[in-house]
């Protein structure tokens, strides 16, 4: 078998281009008839990094990732992947990257193992079909038809198709969209395992908790632009507080019933205030000292607390802070 020699050559190639990033985007731009989908994106993803493109639907994530995958030609800008580009190295690149697209439906009447055998046949090197079935945890469904799989199992099959070539760089476009929470967690574990193995992964998602859980670094996209970039911790810290206090007031005891936002933000440790659907949100850095003062301040304004809860700040709060909109509103 030439597989060992092949992989040695591939590894040597990897070393030669080893100082190059997995992915390098410069000034990427793509417009469709009436909308600018990607508007000047620069991005660099290191070897072995798990990178997340986060944003609401229509933010330009899928267009960006499809340009990276060589499926869409950008109007302007350059794409470099594993030290290669699509103009001169397309054949080589197709062999070395793994791709999972949004909403691919495999033929319902094919068996899992047949789909994987087909995809394995396209690649010069890679893992065995059985190995890919094992990684995607589809052993029990090996001989089941695609039509009989659940949503989560279909996504794991799509993942297995992307993995069967043992790619150096893996693109996952919204891998958990439409899955129930359990199937989502199952898929996260799978991606975790791939990450541990040191594979570079680029994924898009509009679930903040998914990006927080999986990604080393995250770029938040909105209207075709990257509006924030960093580790999830950095991004959360950048909003200036680690905690969110949410409360609602009802029936005034006395006074005019209005919440005096100025009085609240004057409390030490309270960074900002906003109201969304009559829920007040405060961004707070010193939870233990701030909360008693907040309650006291509301009491002084003659307001009745009907709800009070706190949670650690998430990427959702980062998005809200940056855009003034909720991610899920889109």
């Amino acid at each position, binding site marked *: 078998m030439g597989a060992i020699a092949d992989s040695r050559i591939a590894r040597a190639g990897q070393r030669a281009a080893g100082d190059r990033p997995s992915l390098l985007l410069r000034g990427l731009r793509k417009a469709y008839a009436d909308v600018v989908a990607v508007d000047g994106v620069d991005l660099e993803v290191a070897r072995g990094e798990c990178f997340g493109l986060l944003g609401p639907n229509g933010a330009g994530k899928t267009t960006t990732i499809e340009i990276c*995958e*060589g*499926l869409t030609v950008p109007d302007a800008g350059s794409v470099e992947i594993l030290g290669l580009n699509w103009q001169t190295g397309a*054949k080589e690149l*197709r*062999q070395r990257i793994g*791709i999972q*697209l*949004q*909403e*691919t*439906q*495999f*033929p319902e*009447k*094919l068996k899992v193992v*047949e789909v994987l*055998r*087909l*995809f*394995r*046949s*396209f*690649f010069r090197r890679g893992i065995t079909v059985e190995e890919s079935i094992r990684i995607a945890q589809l052993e029990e469904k090996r001989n089941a038809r695609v039509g009989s799989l659940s949503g989560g199992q279909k996504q794991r099959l799509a993942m297995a*198709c992307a993995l069967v070539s043992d790619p150096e760089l893996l693109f996952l476009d919204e891998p958990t969209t439409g899955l129930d929470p359990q199937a989502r967690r199952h898929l996260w574990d799978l991606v975790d395992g791939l990450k541990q193995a040191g594979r570079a992964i680029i994924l898009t998602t509009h679930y903040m908790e998914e990006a927080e859980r999986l990604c080393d670094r995250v770029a938040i996209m909105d209207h075709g632009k990257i509006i924030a970039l960093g580790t999830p911790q950095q991004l959360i810290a950048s909003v200036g507080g680690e905690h969110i206090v949410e409360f609602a007031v009802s029936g005034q005891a006395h006074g005019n019933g209005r919440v005096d936002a100025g009085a609240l933000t004057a409390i030490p440790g309270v960074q900002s205030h906003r109201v969304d659907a009559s829920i007040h949100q405060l961004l707070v850095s010193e939870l233990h000292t701030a909360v008693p003062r907040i309650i006291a301040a509301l009491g002084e304004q003659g307001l009745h607390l009907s709800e009070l809860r706190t949670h650690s700040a998430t990427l959702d709060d980062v998005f809200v802070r940056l855009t003034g909109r909720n991610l899920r509103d889109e």
Partner: protein
Amino acid sequence: MSRLSESSLFQLTAVRFLLFLREPEAVFWIFIFPILLAVGLGIAFRNRPPDVLPVGATTPQLTQALAAGKGLKATTFDQIAGTHALAVGDILLLAIQNPGGVVYKYDDTNPDARIARLLADRAVQAAAGRRDAVRAANELVHETGSRYIDFVVPGLLGMNLMGSAMWGLGFSIVEARQKKLLKRMVASPMPRWQYLAGYVLSRLAMLVIEVVVFLGFARLVFGVPFRGSLWQLGILCVLTSLAFSALGLLVASRAKTMEAVSGLMNLVMLPMWILSGVFFSASRFPAIIQPAVRALPLTAAIDTMRGNMLQGTTLAQMAAPLAILTAWLIVPFAVSLRIFRWR
């Protein structure tokens, strides 16, 4: 696994073949339906044995004389009942015994009745002792190849090759496009030509089964003749199937929905079902549209198959229709490769 079965072209072909076999409706339309159609037409247009003509007579002696004649079935009636039977069509002729001889009562505008008149008179005269002046003997001929079933089998074969190639390619390509499978395929290193070649190769594998089953059936059950060389017939089938595969590819090369491709398919195939001489000779259409009729791929396919099977014509003698078929293979294929939408 062997090296062959690991190759992408083999896998693409095998997957296509498996998907076809797992589609019961497709199996029915391609393998079962043409046989049912051939059986139906074979029964409807079978060559019947010479009819036995029903006649009546007014006396038992006369009935006996008539029954002795070949091709008649005689019954005894009284004159009133016999006239009634004649009027309602139960018998074609009533022979009435008169003192002076025999009177034949029949409708001379009905050909069967005129034949009955001739046969009845011959039987009556023979019974009365007339002898033939000249000895005559018969030699009966039932020519295969001149029956309707012989004519229609090559037509059905051509129609079936057209349908299976066009539906087979058109539907599954558009389905793959609609389900974003095409996009996923081109995102892999799969050579694009192999994807289309996989369709064509699996089509040829099915073609062998399809043609052998159908023609084998026509041969065994109806004794349809094969006067030309079988390998040349094989070449004709392959060429026909490839030409319609190319046409199917063209029809499916841009369509995004099943509805769109169904409409296009019917638009392309309907004129050929009517004009190309599947069920009756295409030469019945007026001379003015003959050039258009001749230029259709199905006309060319059926003409060459009929030529091969019924007249034993060689490929060299059918250069014109073969050139038409080849053009229908090359042009749509070249065009569809240029305009094919992969996503």
